[in-house]
C-alpha cells in the first residue's frame, strides 16, 4: 500500500517543489520568460481551482467562469485608471464585484439544470464581455493598460517579478487548502450530495438551492481574486479575458487534471499551458495535436491526469 500511495504523492510533491524552486532556476539560467509563463500558470490554476469547487464537487457546469477573471481584472484596472492604486481598495473591490456578479447569475441560473444552466451561465458571461467592450472610457474593445501595479505596504512590491510569483503561488496554495476544507466540511457534503442526487437531498430535508448558491458565490469570488492577479501580471485587462473560449479553457484545465480532486486543477493547468507552449513551438497548427490529446484523456482517463495516477497506483498495488 505504501509504495503505491507514494507514487501519487511523489508526483504532487515534485510538482510543488518545482513550482517553489522555479524562480531560483529562472535566476540561475537567466531565463525570465519561464518565470512569466509560470506566473500565468499559477494564476490560471487558481481560477481552475475555483471552478473545480462548483464543477467538480458541485456538478454545476458553469460555462461562464472566465467572466470573473475579467471582472476582477477590470475592478483593478478601472480603479487604477481613476488614480486609486491601493491594493487594499482594489482587491476587495475585485472580490466584492465578483461575488455580487456570482450572486446574481447564480440566483437565476441555479433554478435551471443541465443544458439550460450551461447556456445561462454562458449568456451572462458573454453579456459581461460585451458590456466591457462597450466601456469607451476604459478602452472599450482594445482593453485597458494598467500603468501601475496594485500598491500594498512597504515590503510587498508586486512589480518585483519574483515576489509577485511567490505571492500568486501562496494564494494558489491557500485556495487549494480552502477548497479542500470546504469540500470535506458539512457544507461540502451537502454540495456533493446535491451533485449526486439533488431530488433526494430535498427529500431528506436540505434546501439545496441555497447551498449551491453559496458555493457558486465562493467560487466566483475566488476566481475574481485570480482576475485581480492576472491584471497585475499582464499590466493590462481587456474584454478578451472573459471571452467564452477562455471559460472553455478553464473547464479543460479542470477536466484534464481531474475533477473533484484537490490538486487536479493545478495539474491540469500546468499540463495544458505547457503543452500549448511546447506544441506551438513545433508547429503553428498545434491545436490539431492538442485536440486529439484532450479527446484521449476524456475517453480513457475519466478522472483526468490525477485519475490516471490513481489507476496506476491501483495497478502497482495488485
Amino acid at each position, binding site marked *: 500500500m505504501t509504495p503505491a500511495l507514494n507514487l501519487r504523492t511523489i508526483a504532487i510533491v515534485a510538482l510543488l517543489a518545482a513550482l517553489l524552486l522555479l524562480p531560483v532556476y529562472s535566476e540561475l539560467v537567466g531565463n525570465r520568460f519561464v518565470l512569466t509563463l509560470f506566473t500565468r500558470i499559477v494564476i490560471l490554476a487558481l481560477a481552475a481551482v475555483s471552478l473545480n469547487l462548483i464543477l467538480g464537487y458541485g456538478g454545476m457546469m458553469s460555462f461562464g467562469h472566465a467572466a470573473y477573471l475579467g471582472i476582477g481584472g477590470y475592478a483593478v484596472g478601472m480603479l487604477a485608471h481613476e488614480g486609486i492604486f491601493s491594493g487594499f481598495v482594489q482587491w476587495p473591490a475585485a472580490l466584492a464585484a465578483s461575488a455580487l456578479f456570482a450572486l446574481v447569475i447564480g440566483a437565476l441560473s441555479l433554478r435551471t439544470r443541465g443544458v439550460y444552466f450551461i447556456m445561462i451561465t454562458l449568456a451572462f458571461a458573454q453579456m459581461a464581455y460585451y458590456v466591457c467592450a462597450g466601456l469607451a472610457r476604459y478602452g472599450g474593445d482594445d482593453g485597458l493598460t494598467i500603468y501601475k501595479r496594485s500598491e500594498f505596504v512597504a515590503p510587498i512590491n508586486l512589480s518585483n517579478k519574483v515576489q509577485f510569483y511567490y505571492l500568486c503561488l501562496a494564494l494558489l496554495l491557500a485556495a487549494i487548502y480552502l477548497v479542500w476544507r470546504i469540500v*470535506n466540511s458539512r457544507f461540502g457534503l451537502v454540495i456533493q450530495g446535491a451533485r449526486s442526487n439533488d431530488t433526494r437531498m430535498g*427529500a431528506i*430535508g436540505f434546501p439545496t438551492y441555497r*447551498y449551491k448558491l453559496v458555493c457558486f458565490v465562493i467560487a466566483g469570488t475566488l476566481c475574481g481574486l485570480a482576475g485581480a492577479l492576472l491584471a497585475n501580471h499582464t499590466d493590462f485587462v481587456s474584454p478578451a479575458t472573459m471571452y467564452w473560449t477562455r471559460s472553455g479553457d478553464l473547464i479543460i484545465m479542470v477536466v484534464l487534471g481531474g475533477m473533484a480532486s484537490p490538486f487536479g486543477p493545478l495539474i491540469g493547468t500546468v499540463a495544458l499551458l505547457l503543452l500549448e507552449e511546447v506544441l506551438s513551438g513545433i508547429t503553428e497548427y498545434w491545436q490539431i495535436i492538442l485536440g486529439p490529446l484532450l479527446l484521449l484523456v476524456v475517453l480513457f482517463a475519466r478522472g483526468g491526469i490525477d485519475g490516471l495516477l490513481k489507476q496506476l497506483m491501483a495497478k502497482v498495488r495488485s
Partner: protein
Amino acid sequence: MSGPLLQADNLAKRFGGIIASDDLTLSVASGELHAVIGPNGAGKTTLIAQLSGQLTPDAGHIRFAGNDITLLPMHRRSALGLARSFQITSLFLDLSVLDNVTLAVQAHAGHSFRFWRDARSQTELRQPARAALARVGLTARADQPASALSHGEHRQLELAMALAGNPRLLLLDEPMAGLGPEESARMVDMLRALKRELTILLVEHDMEAVFALADRITVLVYGRVIASGAPADIRADRQVRDAYLGEAEAAHE
C-alpha cells in the same frame, strides 16, 4: 402518550377522474406495525405520499404526535420524526455508504452552513450514522461507494437512511419489492427487530411478510378502507376475501 401517533381523517385525493383516496381514515397507534395492503391501484403509494408530505390531500386532515401536519412540507415532517423510505431506490451512488447515512443524520442536525471542520471526523454525525448502518447490517460495507452494493443492500441502505434521523414513525413503501427470497427473509428479520423500537407503517405486496409482521392490517380497495383489524380478523373477513385475498388464500387452501 395516549391516542394514536399518526391519525389520518377523511383523506381525499383525486387525479382527474381517478379517485386515489376516498374518505380514507386510518390511525396508527404508537409502537405498532401497521400494514396497508390492497390490490394494484388501490392508492397505497398515494397514501404514503400524502402522509410523508410529497402530496397534499384535496380534503381531510393528518395529525402526527399531536400536531396537524396536513400542510407541512416534507422536510418539516421529517424534522418532527416522520421518516420515509422510497419504493424506487434513490441514493447518492457516487458517495460512500457511510456518507449516504451521514447526510441523512446531518439533515437533522441543524443547518449545514459550516465550512471548515471535517464532517467525516465529527462523531456527532458519524456515530449515529454507523449505528444506523449496524441496525440494518451494513457495517462491513460502510466505506464502499454506494454504487458497489447489490439491490438488496441498497434497500438496507435506504432503511438505514430513514433510521438515521431517529424517527418516531417509519413509512415504508414496499421494502421487499424486487428482492430475492433470501434477501426478503433478511428484510423481514430486520423489520421484526425494528418494530420493537419504533412505529412502522408498512405498504407491502408480499402477503407472507405482511401477515408475519403486522400487528394491524388495513385493506384498501379503490382508495377506500374496506377493513382494518388484527391479521386473524382480516384473514377471516368476508369482504376482504371477496375483494382481494380471495384468490391468494384459496390457492393456499
